[in-house]
């Protein structure tokens, strides 16, 4: 039996393919070229091919490892915080007896509309060690004079970035999770009610497995965004104090756009890309099955 190939799809898909090539593939390819050569517009020589030399340079640089450390801290902390908060809020809002649920959803979702740069500046004011509202609020609830230097000390600065990012993106996750929950079939819940299952048993045996795939996908997407985080850090801490909140993305910006070491910045970016792709594949393969095995 012979198979007939149809090429009639080409004219229809060609424009999209060209666009994808131009916007995504070509820049990736150029970044790969940059990462394997030694190019800086500030240096007078023609860029030589250096193979993996830029990656060697990155791996021998303490600031690279610091950037990786900060990225992992924000990633793990962010996913735990945002994932658990969003899930909890979604479960709460999924209850039929919540008055004003729609209004609450609308208001809660507003932070997602705010530009991350604006979020960074807003939180910079909130966290200001000179009479900022957050220190004032903490002073009221603890009945002590709280004067944390959120921007000037390494640990508070990372916490500040986490809080700002969580405030901005938890509502987005909440809405997605909520949509998943309220669209689940009702029959298993009715059956569980008839069997007098407890709320925890319903959550563990019915709700969580049903939305596991959705949760994994959203956590992967959010994780990628956290790894790429730049604007909030730029406005809130500028990577400081010192390099305490300098993620790998921010470090790549510093070396690429302040020092114009474009090849080195490209190597860092490619490293991040490879790590994120591998991690995502692993999570997709195993996550849904294992993530909620309680």
């Amino acid at each position: 039996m012979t198979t007939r190939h149809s090429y009639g799809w080409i004219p229809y898909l060609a424009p999209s393919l060209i666009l994808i090539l131009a916007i995504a593939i070509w820049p990736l390819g150029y970044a790969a070229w940059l990462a394997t050569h030694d190019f800086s517009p500030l240096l007078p020589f023609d860029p030589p091919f250096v193979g993996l030399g830029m990656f060697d340079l990155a791996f021998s640089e303490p600031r690279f490892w610091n950037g990786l450390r900060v990225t992992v801290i924000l990633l793990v902390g962010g996913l735990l915080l945002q994932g658990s908060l969003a899930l909890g809020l979604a479960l709460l809002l999924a209850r039929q007896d919540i008055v004003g649920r729609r209004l609450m959803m609308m208001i809660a979702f507003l932070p997602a509309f705010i530009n991350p740069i604006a979020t960074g500046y807003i939180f910079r004011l909130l966290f200001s060690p000179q009479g900022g509202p957050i220190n004032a609020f903490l002073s009221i609830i603890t009945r002590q004079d709280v004067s944390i230097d959120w921007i000037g000390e390494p640990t508070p600065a990372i916490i500040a970035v986490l809080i700002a990012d969580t405030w901005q993106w938890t509502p987005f996750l909440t809405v997605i999770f909520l949509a998943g929950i309220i669209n689940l079939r009702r029959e298993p819940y009715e059956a569980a009610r008839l069997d007098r299952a407890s709320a925890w048993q319903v959550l563990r045996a019915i709700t969580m497995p049903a939305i596991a795939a959705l949760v994994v996908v959203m956590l992967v997407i959010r994780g990628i965004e956290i790894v790429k985080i730049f604007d909030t850090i730029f406005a809130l801490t500028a990577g400081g104090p010192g390099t305490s909140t300098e993620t790998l993305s921010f470090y790549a910006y510093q070396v690429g756009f302040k020092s114009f070491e474009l090849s080195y910045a490209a190597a860092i970016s490619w490293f991040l890309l490879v790590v994120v792709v591998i991690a995502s594949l692993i999570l997709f393969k195993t996550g849904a099955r294992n993530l909620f095995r309680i």
Partner: protein
Amino acid sequence: MTISKTGPGVSSDTLNRLSDQLLEGKITRRQMLTNLAVAGMSLAAAGSFVNAVGSKRAAAAAMSNYKGVTLTLGQPGGKFGAFAYLEGADWAAQTGAKLNVVELPGGQMYEKVMAEFATGGKSFDMILMPFNQSADVVAGGFAEPLDDFIKAAPLDASYEGGGVEHASVLAPYRDQVIWSLDPKTMDPHIYHICFDGDNHQGFYRKDWWIKYGEEFEAAKGYKLEVDNPWFPATWKQYYEIAEFFNNREIDGQTVYGHHDINATVASTWHFLWRYTSYLKHGTDEQMRAGDVYFDSETMEPLINNEAGVRAMTELVEAASEKYSPPNAKSLNWGDLQEFWQSGRLNMGMTWPAMQKIAADPGRSKIPGGMASTGAFIIPGSDEVFDTASGSWVAQTDVRRRMPVSSWGWGWMIASTSKNKEAAYDLTRWMCTGDRRRSIELRQFAEFEMHHDWEFDDPQISEFYADANPSYFETQKQSVLLSVPDLHIPGQKQFYDAIIIRKGEALNGSKTPKEAVDAMAKDWNRIVKRRGKDSLKAWYEKKSQRYTLG
């Protein structure tokens, strides 16, 4: 030329049309007078109006015709850019040119300008660039040398004489800061027209020093010398004054002894001027020519010597609550202004804008405004680290000061500009004469005097009358005694290393010694990356003066 007010019975459109025609020479004064009278204006009013427009024509006749030319300016936005919209617009109206002003973030001029030029962009005809960050612009071949432009007229000529008042610029700027090296020949050329006499100097609440002078003298054994630009003479005195006033209740609020800028790019100099105060490297003349950053033979950084360690140690200590507001480690230039204008700060050191801020009724809560302020030159030290002997030696000259120039702005013309002559003409207009004076007198502007005539100008003197006798002398001496910023390719990266390592010392993740050692390591890496031989040649040549002959 646009006229917004109309004469009696005459529309503004008619007035504008007739004015343009007169300025362009299409009609005579008599014809304009006749037209206005026919349109209904009284002869007296018409006569006055024609004379006003006609005198503009006389001034315009001294100016070149750049009709059809569009100049694109790259400059900081906000109040820094006001002059382009005022003085620049005036020039454009009289020459027929058009201005396209591109506003860039002031703290990111280097990144934005270099990204444009290094990627082959030709958007800008001229840029307002910090002097210290311009070496890469020059080394990349992106800036036009201005020597021939300047020499086309007498060096002391103002705009009307075809000049740019080059001779009257104070020598440290004129002969040290505004020139760089031709990237091909390594010959010195001028690449900037000086626009701002930035320097750092001290400021304090004179009213408090008077009020608490006796108490201070009883406690410390020496007077608070109000109106003396040379006091405090040493860093030791400075810290004692800061400690005395810190956390004191004055006028119903807690005030603070002093405030360093510890975050963002402005924080660099708070390390550097302590460092240069404690350093002896060759002669003072050699240091004031810029030879304080590297060993010029080996290009080994000098900044982690004992003067650098001491500077960093004191900087960290100065951020403590013994001297400063709480959480001083993260305070920036905006915080400094806020503390000062809210009347909660005794003293600090930064650009000379603090007197203008004190005088601004829209901002300042300082009673008495500028009259309650004083100024002083960055302190010195009674001992210095001598790099020749590797030891600390006594220093007895109470007037030995080494303040770093601390930034400064100048106009550069892009080498790719197709309108270099027009760009230079605009620069001359903005940087000289009445325009220069009006910028200085504008309260919201933060550009400082840098021509010698400005210090004798009656209007400027009257503006700052309340801040004198210390302010003018402080500012002038701070420039004359200044050590220039590092001004070689890679300067931005060298100074970024200072900011990062200083931040690590302040937050305790490194000791001061570890921080300056890490800084030196960063500098070594940058030198290696940029080419040691090339940077050595730059550093050696830039550690000299270049006088345009």
